[in-house]
C-alpha cells in the first residue's frame, strides 16, 4: 500500500496516543516498517486482550490508505505479520465475522464496502481528532464489554 506524505505525517502525529492507550491496556502497537526494514508504513500491528481473559492475545492488522480521511482495513491475524485467514484468530464479538474475516460495523473499510449507505450521516467515517485512537479504543471497548470467547 502506498501512503502519501501527508497521511504518513498525520499518522506519526496520532501514534503516541495509541501507544499510550495500548500500554495502559496491556497491549502494544508496532508499525510494519519498524518490525522489519522494507516494511509498509501504512500498516500497523496491534496486540490486544479482553479484560475478562487477560491470558488471551489477539493480533490485529490496521492498514491505512489516506489518513485521517479514509477508514482502515481491519483484519485479525494469528501473529504479528501472521496469517489473515485463520478463523481462530478472531474473537466472538457481535459484528466481528470470523467466517468472512471482516468487521461489519462502520469503523473499517470492510464494513463500508458491505454498507455503502454508512458513508452518509452519523455513521460516516470521522475525520476530526484522532481516528486512529478511536478505532483502537473501539476495538478495546468491544473486547472489554462484548467479548464471548475465541471464534472456532
Amino acid at each position, binding site marked *: 500500500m502506498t501512503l502519501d506524505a501527508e497521511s504518513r505525517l498525520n499518522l506519526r502525529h496520532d501514534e503516541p*496516543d495509541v501507544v499510550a492507550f495500548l500500554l495502559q*491496556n496491556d497491549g502494544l502497537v508496532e508499525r510494519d516498517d519498524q518490525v522489519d526494514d522494507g516494511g509498509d508504513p501504512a500498516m500497523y500491528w496491534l496486540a490486544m486482550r479482553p*479484560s475478562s481473559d487477560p491470558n488471551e492475545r489477539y493480533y490485529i492488522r490496521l492498514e491505512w490508505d489516506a489518513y485521517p480521511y479514509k477508514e482502515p482495513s481491519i483484519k485479525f491475524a494469528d501473529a504479528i505479520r501472521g496469517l489473515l485467514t485463520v478463523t481462530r484468530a478472531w474473537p466472538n464479538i*457481535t*459484528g466481528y465475522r470470523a467466517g468472512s474475516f471482516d468487521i*461489519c*460495523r*462502520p*469503523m473499517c473499510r470492510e*464494513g463500508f464496502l*458491505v*454498507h455503502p449507505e*454508512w458513508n452518509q*450521516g*452519523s*455513521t460516516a467515517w*470521522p475525520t*476530526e*481528532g*484522532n*481516528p486512529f*485512537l*478511536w478505532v483502537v*479504543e*473501539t476495538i*478495546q*471497548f468491544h473486547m*472489554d*464489554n462484548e467479548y464471548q470467547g475465541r471464534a472456532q
Partner: protein
Amino acid sequence: MEDNHRLAEIEIRVSFPITKHGPLKEKVERGTTVGTALTDAMTYFEVHDDSQFTYVLAHDGQEQNGSTTLESLAGKSHEVRFNLVKKITQG
C-alpha cells in the same frame, strides 16, 4: 466550610478521540450520577444519540450504568476518568 465543600466535589475527566475539543474537565458533586456526567459530556462534545448508535461512558474499560454514582466509582480518589464511547449498532 470551604474545605467541606471541596470534599463534596469530585473532578471528572472525559476523553473522546474524534472531536475538535480537548477532554472535558469539570468539578461536580460526588453524588452525581454517571447519567448526568454523560449528558454533560455529550453537550460538551456536541454529539447526540440517533437510530444508528448511542453514547455511553466507560470507566476502566467497562461501560457504566447511568444510575451509578461517581462517588462509588471514585472511592477515596478525587478524580474519575471516563471515555465517551460511540456504541455502534451491528451491520
